[in-house]
């Protein structure tokens, strides 16, 4: 694909979104949809916490930066996977802020040809400034003929 881009765009914040306060019933519905029965995830009360992967329902208002290399803009990408570093659990009433950065951009050649991976990092904090999670979203673009 011949990927060339200005590496200075890596690490630049391109979006900051604050979400509405988390409701207890949202935490419980999420955990139940995963078949969870642990009281800490499904019983209302002060001990209720979000299931660890509840954090990945939060996204930035804009998923990609405007200065993504031209060859990738407006093309369909696929969710290739995620890496999550977990911080403090989400609790009812938390207001989560998501700061988005372009974390990495690289090319790989596999059995099905060349692919470009765009890694968008969401750093999530609560209203106390505590880190809830750092999520690296790996989006994959297939090479063009």
């Amino acid at each position: 694909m011949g990927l060339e881009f200005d590496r200075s765009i890596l690490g630049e914040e391109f979006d900051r979104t604050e979400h509405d306060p988390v409701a207890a019933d949202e935490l419980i519905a999420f955990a139940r949809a995963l078949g969870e029965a642990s009281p800490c995830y499904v019983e209302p009360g002060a001990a209720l916490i979000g299931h660890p992967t509840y954090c990945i329902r939060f996204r930035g208002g804009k998923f990609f930066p405007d200065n993504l290399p031209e060859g990738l803009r407006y093309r369909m990408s696929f969710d290739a996977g995620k890496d999550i570093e977990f911080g403090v659990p989400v609790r009812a009433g938390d207001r989560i802020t998501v700061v988005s950065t372009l974390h990495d951009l690289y090319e790989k050649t596999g059995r099905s040809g060349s692919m470009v991976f765009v890694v968008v990092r969401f750093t999530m904090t609560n209203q106390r400034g505590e880190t809830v999670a750092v999520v690296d979203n790996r989006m994959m673009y297939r090479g063009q003929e």
Partner: protein
Amino acid sequence: MADRRFDDVFEGDELGPVELFLSKDQVRAYARAVDHYFARFTDDEGARREGLPGMITPGNMSMGLLTTLVDGWAGPGKLRRLGTTFRGLVLPDRTIRLCGAVTQKDQTTRSVELDVWMESDEGERLVIGTATVALQ
């Protein structure tokens, strides 16, 4: 629920397998819970219009299910990191298996590295990953 201790864990220990029938209704409930009620996750016809073989399971839900495996083994609040690669479409209304194994112990940090994966009833690994848990 387990509250597993570091000293009781050994490299090569297995997690699961946990076998479950992943119904379309469960996938729809997840899509609704995360406000991602898109055709590809809720409706076969809509998914086919997007070029998919039928409705699919969100990758994030697969991560959530793998987390339930780790949580069930280690106890809630022990998971520190989870990394996954989505290798194949996870189609609902089928049986899947959640599996894992201990690959490494770190005495200094009292943490344990795991391989985790979700496989189809035919044994195809649809989602693979690694996880770190911290134990007492």
